[in-house]
């Protein structure tokens, strides 16, 4: 089941399914490694303000508006 990054929980390991594109930050997200299929961990989602994720060895924060455009799926631990 896919859901938005804004609905993710702390310490949840997820896989990126799709980024809804068509705006300025799209290329930046790709450059930061947010590419469909990539796995990452949600570090902090306070329920307000930006969301912090851990991806390719760095912590990145995404504003809530942007996190709303990122569709993810929970990564199965056995996979």
């Amino acid at each position, binding site marked *: 089941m896919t859901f938005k990054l804004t609905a993710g929980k702390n310490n949840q390991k997820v896989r990126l399914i799709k980024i809804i594109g068509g705006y*300025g930050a799209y*290329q930046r*997200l790709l450059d930061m*490694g947010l*590419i*469909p299929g990539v796995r990452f961990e949600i570090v902090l989602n306070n329920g307000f303000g930006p969301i912090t994720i851990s991806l390719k060895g760095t912590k990145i*924060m995404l504003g809530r508006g*942007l996190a709303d455009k990122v569709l993810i799926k929970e990564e199965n631990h056995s996979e």
Partner: protein
Amino acid sequence: MNKITIALTGNPNSGKTTVFNNLTGSHQHVGNYPGVTVESKEGTITFRGYHIRIIDLPGTYSLSAYSEDEIVARNVILDENPDMIVNVVDSSNLERNLYFVTQLMELQKPIILAMNMTDIVEQQGKVIDYSLLSKKIGVRIVPTIGSKNKGTEKLLEMVIKLKEDQHEYTPVAVDYGNEIQDEILRISEIIKKDAILSEKLPVRWVAIKLLENDQRTIENIKNSPLADKLLDQKEKSRNHLKNHFGEDPEVIIADRRYGFVSGLCNQVLVQQGEDKYSLTDKIDRIVLNRFWGLPIFALAMYTIFKFTFTLSEPVVGWFETLFGWLEGITAALLPEGLLQSFLVDGLIGGVGGVLGFFPLIMFMFFAIAFYEDTGYMARAVFIMDRIMTRFGLHGKSFLPLMLATNGCAVPAIMASRTIDNKRDRLITMLVTPFMICGAKLPIFALFIGAFFAAHNAANLMFLLYLLSVVIAFTASLFLKKVVFKGQPSYLVMELPPYRIPTIKGLLLKMWERGWLYLKKAGTIILLISVVMWVGFTFPQLDPDTATITSLSEQEIAARQIENSYAGRIGHFLEPMVRPIGQDWRGGIALLAGIAAKEVVVSTFGTIYSMGEVDVEEPVSLRGAMQNDPNWNPLKAFSFMLFSLIYVPCFVTVAVFYRESGSSLKWTSVLLFGSTLLAWILSFLVYQIGGLWI
């Protein structure tokens, strides 16, 4: 002497600035306010008979045209045509840093990788096979530890070795797979037919950028006679790839680059080790906490102000004493007359007034640099994003607003370059001048000191700070809701691991920013001081009328000022400033303030000290204004309010004009919008306030 030009690149937080400082020592020339390294700095050194020029480029993750930083970085590499690129790599974060390297490799320049932070790699238990990495991608490698100044000389030796190497040493090309490679070739074929274009830019790079739909590259090729054909092929290729992969080509290209990099990492990381960010994680758990985050942020900001004001106070005192002493000496040595008046009132008085709070600015820059270099500023963006977005700003808008508060709007506007979105940046630039910069501070200090009770001073100052924030936020909300309706803004930013800053790095940062401020004070304000003095001194009253009419010396002095050029301009302005409670004196001071806000104070200084007869016993400016029956607290407050809001100093306006992309439209909005707002608010306060008094 042989010359070598180097472009120094790297990801943000890779330690690039430290490596630059190590390489150049003290031989740096900051061309502009570096904000958060937003403008390219230059340094030169002489090493083994070579004159090496190093251009420090903004730290970036990519060479897309997404942000100003990236555009500056790639334009310098393409236009300045450096002999080679030295790219600083955070070796402890290989994958993300090598992604950037894959893009540099496409620019067809020799590359040296300064593999930085190798000490952290060791701590993590990782082992990197440098010679394999060097072979695999066709670049040269030097391990460095910037924070301990290790590897600096080896890096310079490598630069010379690469320069002296006769045979071409070019990086390999990333393999994007057959489908994309075919399209790259199709576009390249057309580019090659345009001799000028293919001479100017690397062909394959342009082709890839077109496939990525890079707007800046599309603009660059527009002048080519083959532009139509190229754009046509670009669309065809993009559609073909979209159909084939079911994704935008830029997604596939980024994916292939990361694929290339991750394959590379698997090969060159002989021992994987573990990423140790446990301490950073622990700190972040507290600092970014939903309850503790905001109080900690407030505390951090409070320490900046406390640090700045407490430590700078004695130094500001020394400066004042020094300039007072200079004035005294000059007055004693020179005979009374025009020359003495010029030196004492015009030069020393004018420049001294400005330099008086230079120490304050230096301490402020130091404190901000501390929070930047530890990594806390990124957390501050995290905390502030929620509040800022509510008012139509951006999480990153917070730093410019912060720099302008007690600092200067000029570096603040430059620092807004880190805001990637053009509209967010424009809103930030428009409201930044409303903050109380270091130059407005003395105006308020003067008026509050002169016209309000001492026990109210702190409250009143706080009220002005509060007002500046309210006005800035209201204006940004208005711009966002009314002018730029319905365009959402996005924040994406790295949270770097916490690091202990080096004293040298902090001092250099402080000095770079402070020096540019000082240059402004030394040149523009000096000039303005001289112009102001001339304006107030000439034309001189006919001495005969002065002696014949039986006026007191004080009245003569007052007449002299009213009769001067400045006085006449002031009188001309009077009808405009009378509704906000000012007379010609306020008018001329405000007009002079457009040159630089500090000048408002020095203009009053000129008006009142020249009206003073007894040079031996000068009454302080504050006292002189208190004794002037024309003033009252309401007028003083109206004046402060107007000063807070009206048109920023012309250096700020000039920088705004350039940074807004030479937009006359937005520069006019800044000029007239702020002045109109200032007039309306002061008018309301003065007129409504007048009903009570």
